[in-house]
């Protein structure tokens, strides 16, 4: 048996990497990917706890998180496409008509 804490450690590490990605990267697409990474690490934690407690609830939540992530990505990419058509960039620093 692999101890639960190993899994949690791994998921925390991946979560941190996702946060770092969101903070450091400027490409909107990569930002999205980093957010997906965060969600996935959370899912991993949920599944781990579900296993540790022999409880299906954790896995169910993962299912919902995946649905939400898909919806979010769909809307986000639609927005991105719309912006790109007018501005031809995905660099969030260039999306700066609002800076001030």
């Amino acid at each position, binding site marked *: *048996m*692999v101890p639960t804490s*190993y*899994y949690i450690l*791994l998921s925390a*590490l*991946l979560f941190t*990497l*996702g946060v*770092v*990605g969101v903070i*450091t*990267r*400027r*490409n909107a*697409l*990569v930002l*999205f*990917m*980093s957010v*997906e*990474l965060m969600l*996935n690490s959370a*899912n*991993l934690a949920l*599944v*781990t706890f*579900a*296993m540790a407690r*022999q*409880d*299906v*609830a954790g*896995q*169910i939540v*993962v*299912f*919902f998180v*995946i*649905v*939400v*992530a*898909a*919806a*979010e*990505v*769909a*809307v986000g*990419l*639609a*927005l*991105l*496409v*719309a912006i*790109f*058509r007018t501005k031809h*960039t*995905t*660099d969030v620093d260039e999306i700066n008509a609002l800076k001030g």
Partner: protein
Amino acid sequence: MELIIFLITAAVAITGAVAMLLSPNAIHSAIFLLINFVAISVLYVLLYAPFLFAIQLIVYAGAIIVLFLFVVMLLGAERAEDTRERFAWQRPLGLTLAAILLGLIGYIALRGPTSGATVADQQFAAPERIAEALFTTYLLPFEITAFLLLAAIVGVVVLHMSNHAGSGG
């Protein structure tokens, strides 16, 4: 044995994540993210979550990543960020990680994940159980996701159509 599988998978997942962060090319990032997702799906198998293993592969790896790739290519935005240098390490790294993952999956498929299991009820999260929970205990969130998806669809359609209306004049 299980610990070794875990450690290897974890290493692959972390490497994938780090490589995703470091790639200046959005396509490469997406592929490394894919590797990470697959690694996590392997962990799901270890954690007795066969249903999520499938969902993870189908929805995340299959749909979301493909959507990403599709948008990247559609927009031609793969190098929107930093185009100066191109690392040579990405291709071999990606191939190696993928090979490791394939090996792991093959091993698990042959041996089964339950090498040293002390789990009382291995079927606690069988797909039927999940289905039953979804339609009884978790009926409300299930319904909400329906509306959530509906709202998202409407939103995407609206954004797309307003874009047309705008470019049309």
